[in-house]
């Protein structure tokens, strides 16, 4: 049947499909209003929406079949963007049972999403690669890494999934149903009377409190992550675009400042932000002086703000590397055809850089979802991460199916976003250009641009770099720990000394660095094994290894923690080993922590090793083999000398992420204080509402920052490049 062709007398265009969606949405919404009017406010169920969505999907698919602009569908970045994030939105709307206006919105989007998805799925297929798949070394490597990941990543997640289906009367979806129908978890309408901005008149003056609205645990997390992702994407991309294309006085300083928030200082950085924007913070003082009211950001809004400040450099870094990697001849070609300014940027540069930017945004989405620091410091327990955290710790080692179900929901949200973005990035092979032909000389910024740089961008960068600076100041007592107050005269090394001299505190440091070192050793071996098998092997499983090794990026830390609780409890029972039993007083938390580190932080080293191997021409190895060298010999004399640097650099990145790991450290690591790492100590100073020993936490933050700085500088020297790219 030819629907559009019969109706319009020509092949459908993108706007016809968009129009079809809008028409369907209007029809659906009209039906919805009529239904509610007739049945006196009883809204039609989800089934009606599903029917409308199915019809919309079919309309989109028919358009694709009738020859709707196949190239535009496959290669337009805006349609790709729409397909992924629109698809996510539609999925969530259906999952949460939203109908009415939200449903109509989903119906309107669906035809284009369906057409784009159909076009992209049909355009798949791969070429073949060199070298053997029957090679014993490659098979051994693949077997080892698959077995490790199967045992310590997939098995815990499978147990988690199985656990979430356990109900008092057998197997079922009861927990999911009760969670999704519980207004504590999902409350689209919000709490009556709850407002996002509260204006209070107190005896001491007017207070304006921005705090966000409570929509239930799951929606709060989702809304927060969405806001954070969008804000960081726009902010990071905009700053990267300017920084990569223009030169101006002070640019080098800007480049350093903008990366400062990348230095992870768990909990204490959110605390520093709280002292800046909270009650009695700098912002409220300034607004009081200027406008006679005290502006504060707290609650959910505070969490979002803290996360935006901490995470936007991830997008910035990816965007900067992507812009720098855009082949200058591409832009020059467009310019010679008459494109310039914003047109050039939006039509050529941005689409070419988009895969890299999307990879960064996706990471931010997942980091935001799993973040524990900001919610705990802002005492915002009505989000997924802190909820799981609390349920776990109050249960002390035994896991209720309800936590497992919540963990599964969190995992699904993170995985969907990750896989959608990954398939989008994967469809664009130009994401990583093969060879840099040269870099465009940056242009001088005009006076208007300079004004924007110094009056808008600089304050933003300084503002976002503030937490790390404050942490350092607090650690040396140059700033008061509980308020926004400088006291440079009182500076002292006291807390830094305590860190190493007090045995109770030093233990945390020792634990952290022991765990991180051992885990990094495992990671280096795993990364080499997976990357070599994936890069040189042939066959679906081997080629999928790289994707599997990247997967831990998509799994929120607390989900891993819950999975490990179940997994190790089960393992202890099965093997009768009390050392791995989380509920046993003799539990050696070091074992699961190190294993968790080695799995969770593997992607950084694995990606680096894989990228290094891909740049290594296979013929270098084949030449050695044809001269009589076996695989192991080739690995030793050709591969390791040439990609060892990438592997080492990647492992150092893994190391710093191990040292700053939060989710598993503060849950499993909290069960037996003998084995607690630093982040567990840091967290314990913030739970319970009052802040504990802040200067010590700040001193720990300084140690972590120094380690990160040393590692990053080494990596940059090793790889001889200033900006790296976090791929997904």
């Amino acid at each position, binding site marked *: 049947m030819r629907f559009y062709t019969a109706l319009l007398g020509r092949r459908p265009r993108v706007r016809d499909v968009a129009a079809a969606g809008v028409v369907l949405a209007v029809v659906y919404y009209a039906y919805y209003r009529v239904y509610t009017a007739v049945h006196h406010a009883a809204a039609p169920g989800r089934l009606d929406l599903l029917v409308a969505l199915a019809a919309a999907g079919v309309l989109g698919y028919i358009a694709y079949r009738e020859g709707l602009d196949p190239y535009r569908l496959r290669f337009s970045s805006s349609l790709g963007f729409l397909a992924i994030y629109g698809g996510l939105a539609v999925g969530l709307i259906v999952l949460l049972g939203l109908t009415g206006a939200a449903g109509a919105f989903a119906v309107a989007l669906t035809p284009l999403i369906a057409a784009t998805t159909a076009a992209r799925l049909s355009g798949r297929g791969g070429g073949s690669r*060199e*070298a053997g798949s029957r090679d014993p070394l490659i098979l051994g490597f693949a077997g080892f890494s698959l077995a490790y990941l199967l045992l310590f990543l997939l098995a815990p997640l499978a147990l988690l999934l199985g656990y979430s289906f356990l109900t008092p009367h057998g197997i079922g979806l009861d927990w999911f149903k009760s969670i999704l129908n519980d207004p504590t978890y999902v409350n689209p309408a919000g709490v009556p009377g709850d407002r996002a901005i509260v204006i209070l008149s107190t005896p001491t003056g007017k207070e304006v409190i921005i705090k966000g609205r409570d929509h239930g645990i799951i929606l709060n997390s989702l809304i927060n992550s969405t806001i954070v992702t969008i804000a960081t994407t726009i902010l990071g991309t905009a700053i990267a675009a300017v920084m990569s294309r223009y030169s101006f006085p002070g640019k080098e300083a800007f480049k350093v400042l903008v990366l400062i928030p990348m230095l992870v200082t768990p909990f204490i950085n959110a605390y520093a932000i709280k002292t800046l924007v909270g009650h009695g913070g700098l912002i409220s003082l300034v607004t009081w002086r200027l406008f006679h009211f005290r502006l504060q950001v707290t609650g959910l809004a505070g969490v979002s703000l803290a996360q935006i400040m901490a995470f936007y450099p991830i997008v910035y870094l990816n965007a900067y590397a992507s812009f720098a990697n855009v082949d200058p001849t591409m832009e020059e070609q467009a310019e010679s055809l008459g494109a310039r300014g914003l047109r050039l940027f939006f039509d050529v540069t941005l689409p070419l850089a988009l895969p890299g930017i999307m990879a960064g945004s996706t990471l931010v989405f997942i980091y935001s979802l799993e973040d524990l620091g900001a919610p705990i410091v802002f005492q915002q327990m009505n989000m997924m991460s802190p909820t799981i955290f609390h349920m776990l710790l109050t249960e002390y080692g035994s896991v209720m199916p309800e936590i497992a179900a919540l963990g599964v929901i969190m995992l699904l949200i993170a995985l969907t976003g990750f896989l959608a973005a990954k398939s989008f990035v994967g469809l664009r092979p130009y994401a990583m250009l093969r060879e840099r032909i040269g870099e465009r000389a940056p242009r001088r910024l005009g006076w208007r641009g300079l004004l924007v740089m110094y009056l808008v961008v600089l304050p933003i960068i300084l503002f976002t770099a503030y937490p790390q600076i404050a942490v350092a100041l607090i650690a040396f007592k140059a700033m008061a720990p509980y308020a926004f107050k400088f006291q440079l005269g009182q500076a002292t090394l006291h807390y830094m000394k305590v860190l190493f001299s007090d045995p109770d505190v030093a233990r945390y440091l020792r634990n952290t660095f022991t765990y991180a070192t051992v885990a990094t050793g495992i990671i280096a071996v795993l990364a080499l094994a997976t990357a070599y098998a994936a890069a040189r092997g042939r066959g679906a499983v081997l080629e999928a290894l790289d994707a599997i090794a990247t997967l831990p990026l998509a799994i929120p830390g607390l989900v891993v923690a819950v999975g490990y609780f179940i997994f190790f409890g089960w393992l202890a029972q099965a093997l009768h080993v009390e050392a791995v039993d989380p509920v046993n007083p003799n539990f050696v938390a070091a074992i699961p922590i190190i294993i968790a580190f080695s799995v969770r932080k593997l992607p950084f080293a694995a990606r680096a090793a894989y990228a290094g191997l891909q740049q290594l021409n296979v013929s270098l190895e*084949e030449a050695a083999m044809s001269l009589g060298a076996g695989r192991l010999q080739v690995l030793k004399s050709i591969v390791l000398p040439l990609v060892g640097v990438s592997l080492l650099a990647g492992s150092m990145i893994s190391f710093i992420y191990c040292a700053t790991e939060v989710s598993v450290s503060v849950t499993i690591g909290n069960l037996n204080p003998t084995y607690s790492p630093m982040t567990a100590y840091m967290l314990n100073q913030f739970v319970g509402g009052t802040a504990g020993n802040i200067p010590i936490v700040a001193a720990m933050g300084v140690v972590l920052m120094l380690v990160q700085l040393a590692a990053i500088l080494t990596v940059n020297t090793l790889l001889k490049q200033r900006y790296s790219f976090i791929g997904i």
Partner: protein
Amino acid sequence: MTRVELRGVTKRFRGVTAVDGVSFSVESGEFFVILGPSGSGKTTTLRIIAGFEAPDEGRVLFDGEDVTERRPYERGTAMVFQNYALWPHMTVFDNIAFGLKIRKVPWEEIRRRVKWALELVRLEGMEDRYPHQLSGGQQQRVALARALVVEPRVLLLDEPLSNLDAKLRVEMREELKRLQRKLGVTTIYVTHDQVEAMTLADRIAILNKGRLLQVGSPQEVYFNPANLFVAAFIGRSNIYEARVTGSQGGYVEVEVPSLSTRLYGIPAPGLEGGGEAYVSIRPEFIKLHPPEGGGGYASVEASLEMHMFRGDRVEARFRLPSGASLIAFLDPEERLSVGASYRLYVRYDHVRVLPPPRSPHEEPD
């Protein structure tokens, strides 16, 4: 000194047949060239001989011994790659010594043989350089020395000259021929460049779309192409549709509508039955004057459309009365004027009659 034999070798990549039932044998000490356009399966064939690919069907034999299941490093071959594949972290010496070290050759012997190999490729004194300090031609020589120093049973070369500039390519071609003659090593060389193939080979194998279309000496494949693809691919040819109208003892009479003439007494074994065929005439066999001596010839009137002076010849394009065009390589001293009419002559024994393509592999591109 090794004899290499391929028996019915087939290789598929995800449903696409890259090499399709290829059989040939390379004699001991022979310089054997595999020639074909890109995508013809020539590199895959070489990689199967080297052991980097395992064939889906068929066997590979070295001196009658089946090596199909052997790993690359167990075959005693040495391969030179298109991109040279010199290890950037090793000096010239280390690159060349690598294969000897693997073979656990004593240190003194290694030094002696590396020196010998460097002299062979005329790179004495370059031991301590790194690959990036060498020119393209020098890198090429190091790659060659690295392969030759292990005294391989079979030397395999994958388009080794394609990254060099034109002048250097000619030089290296002669060098390669000299070395192969001197060492007498069985050599299999893959290229898409027919001039390279002609000048280097003892025998040439022509591959298209995975099929082996002809094996023969350069003269054989040039003067007696087995099918339309080979005729069109090797050198230049005027190819016209024709009909076999009569035959006598392996000789046929063909009618060629494009030339508006009949040609007689042309050897075409297998085409005596008559029917559709093609004729192929090399441009250098077309003359402006009637040939002297015996033998029949055909002639046709044509107008000159364009001519290009090439130094050693003039390339002229004529338009025939039938509307078809004809290319001729003429004496460079010939004075020609565009638009003028000329009578062109070709001897019958310079015309080749070819069967119509029996499969897509034999169709010219």
